């Protein structure tokens, strides 16, 4: 029996998108000096949403100068308890405007409203709330003597969780007394610009937060700017490496949160139904546009067939379509470019001999879409088992012993996250010890919290966001030498 769902779209009336946006520098929206702009589209419909300014060198200079002035004349001198109150204000404003921001995020990014409403926005507000409380308690964080801000932070964020990544960057930076220049991803600038409006509503002193929009060139100008003291980047490993090269030989501090190729490991004693939900959440959450996605499923051989059957059955019930529809499980791919990248990697999987499977799934006529996809008969040498796909594509491998599972899980240059599914507690801890990954989810997956540090081993980057380590990334103390 099939159920027909009536459409249940969230109303767009709650958002008011301007036809064009300037740059947010020194507390005001200004036109870029060279006047360039690009169009931002709704990836689910290809409808043009707005014109976004492109910041050039003069704009980057202006933003960094504004941040420097704000640091030396206002924010850097302000008592921690007052910085805290601004951050609490921002947290409350985000809560008040969360429906609007969720709809805007879904329109610009393509993610299901269920996720932007129930995951992204609550976490954004929580992140500001958590770090607000640190602003007047820095000396209690145990990070060294005389903890203080670093200065001006250059922050470049990706398009997969636009507002959440902004919160991960701005909240700890401001709590520690830094000022920031943030560049959102080219395809998802709108919620960052809405956040600029929130900064105005909060009466945040001008220049403490500056938002400059543009593509890779703007980002490069920002991180290479000599007036910047700290660089924080979330995005691809390739760009992360180029940023690490760019800051070499400077005194800039650097944190990088890069790609991943997480193993999600299912043992034969795992509760299969729960594990299948975890597998689905691990790879199909946010269309697989998740750096910590459980993109390599490792199943113990004896239950491989059972898990796969159950997984395929579950995938048959996933609903792909209008991201604004409250019943939608899988939204749009964020851009034509990303869709091309996913398509190319999936084709390589077929060419290299893996078996491709997708549930029956009708893709909308317009917009960028990719059906949930599973590959079986995958070997560790296949590109789909080694490279980050950043899409709704799962590669399935099998193992016989815990040692083999560890060997395969760690056989990657990445080390961001991993999952373990088993009822045996001692095995969970044994596995968690040996997995070379920054976040290990046991009998769960893709959980996030502002108190919980997030970040990778190896080529997944260095530094952490969230918790006390997330605060450390924006502080200097009298005890430290120079770790880049």
């Amino acid at each position, binding site marked *: 029996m099939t159920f027909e769902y009536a459409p249940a779209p969230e109303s767009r009336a709650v958002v008011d998108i301007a036809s064009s946006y300037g740059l947010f520098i020194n507390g005001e929206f200004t036109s870029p000096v060279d006047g360039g702009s690009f169009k931002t589209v709704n990836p689910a419909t290809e409808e043009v949403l707005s014109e976004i300014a492109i910041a050039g060198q003069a704009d980057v200079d202006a933003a960094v100068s504004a941040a420097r002035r704000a640091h030396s004349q206002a924010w850097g001198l302000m008592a921690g308890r007052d910085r805290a109150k601004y951050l609490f204000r921002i947290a409350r404003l985000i809560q008040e405007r969360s429906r609007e921001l969720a709809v805007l995020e879904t329109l610009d990014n393509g993610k299901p409203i269920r996720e932007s409403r129930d995951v992204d926005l609550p976490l954004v507000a*929580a992140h500001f709330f958590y770090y607000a409380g640190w602003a007047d308690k820095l000396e209690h964080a*145990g990070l*060294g003597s005389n903890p203080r801000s670093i200065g001006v932070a250059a922050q470049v964020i990706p398009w997969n969780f636009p507002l959440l990544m902004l919160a991960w960057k701005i909240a700890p930076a401001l709590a520690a007394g830094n000022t920031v220049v943030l560049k959102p991803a080219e395809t998802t600038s709108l919620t960052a610009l809405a956040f600029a409006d929130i900064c105005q509503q909060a009466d945040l002193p001008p220049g403490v937060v500056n938002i400059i929009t543009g593509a890779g060139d703007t980002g490069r100008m920002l991180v290479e700017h000599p007036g910047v003291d700290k660089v924080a980047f979330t995005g691809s*490993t390739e760009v*992360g*490496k*180029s940023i*690490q*090269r760019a800051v*070499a*030989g400077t005194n800039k501090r650097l944190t*990088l949160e*890069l790609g991943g190729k997480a193993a999600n490991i299912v043992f034969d004693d795992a509760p299969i139904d729960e594990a299948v939900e975890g597998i689905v959440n691990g790879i199909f959450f946010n269309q697989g546009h998740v750096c910590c996605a459980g993109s390599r499923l490792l199943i113990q051989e004896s239950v491989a067939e059972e898990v796969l059957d159950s997984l395929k059955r579950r995938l048959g019930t996933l609903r792909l379509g209008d991201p604004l529809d409250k019943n939608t499980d899988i939204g749009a791919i964020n851009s034509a470019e990303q869709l091309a990248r996913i398509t190319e990697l999936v084709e390589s999987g077929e060419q290299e001999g893996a078996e491709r499977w997708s549930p029956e799934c009708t893709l909308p006529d317009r917009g960028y879409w990719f059906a949930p996809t599973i590959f079986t008969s995958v070997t560790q040498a296949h590109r789909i088992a080694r490279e980050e796909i950043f899409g709704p594509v799962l590669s399935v491998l099998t193992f016989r012993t815990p040692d083999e599972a560890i060997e395969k899980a760690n056989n990657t*240059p990445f080390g961001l996250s991993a999952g373990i599914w088993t009822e045996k507690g001692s095995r*969970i801890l044994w596995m*968690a010890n040996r997995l070379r*990954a*920054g*976040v*290990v*989810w*046991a*009998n*769960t997956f893709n*959980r996030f*919290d502002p*108190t*919980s*540090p*997030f*970040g990778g*081993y*190896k*080529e*997944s*980057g*260095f530094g*952490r966001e969230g*918790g*006390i*380590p997330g605060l*450390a990334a924006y502080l200097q103390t009298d*005890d*430290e*030498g*120079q*770790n*880049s």
Partner: protein
Amino acid sequence: MNERVEVRKTYKLFVGGAFPRSESGRTYEVLDFEGDFLANAAKASRKDGRDAVLAARKSFGAWSAATAYNRGQVLYRIAEVMEGRRDQFIADIASAEGVVGLDAPRIVDAAIDRWVWYAGWADKVAQVLGTTNPVAGPYFNFSIPEPTGVVVAVAPQASSLLGLVSVIAPIIVTGNACVVIASTERPLPAITLTEVLATSDVIGGVINVLTGDPAEIMPWLASHADVNALDLTGITDPALATELEIAAADTVKRVRRAAPDEDWHEPATLSRIRGFVETKTVWHPLGV
């Protein structure tokens, strides 16, 4: 007069717990602070560097899996054995660094005490840097520091013993394995230290000491894919430091930048330990 002819020592590398010569067969002259000949030291090649990384990687599994209590005891044992050779280190330091009077004993004592200080950290780091995290949901969540892996370090050029110990101890105490390039012009105290390490229950390969020229060896190790982090403390040439930092980016290595002027008599801090650990966070649901 029948003065005894002393037996001189051949100074070699320390790799994988053994004392090989450089595979290149090369040596270089080591002079004392007055410019007089002291010894020939092995001039390590890039191949020696790679062998040392291999040895370090091989030891990493056992050393990082050792209990923190055990690692603490091993570091303390190094201090004990050093204490027994105190006079030899004082003589080494005096001829290498030209320090006179009470300065040489002061340096050696500080080096021994530094091992003791770091030894005590082994079973406390996780308590100070780790924590449980009060997440907003039905989960138990904790974060712990874990060793980064294989760390390649350049020891300070001037402070040939105290600086060297101050670089090595914080790297290995948390379970990392290291390859360290000793002071180029003052390598003999480092070699004496390797004789201590060889008899101190340190697993072979956890500390590998090379003598030679960092400018020759480091570019190969900075781009080595099986190295996880660099400690450039002893690099004195800013251009070389930048070049190494750029090479490190190829595999996203953690880099501690050059600090040629660090005062090693200052009390140590947690900073160096922090530089070479990763935070691992584990989640598990609560339920019945």
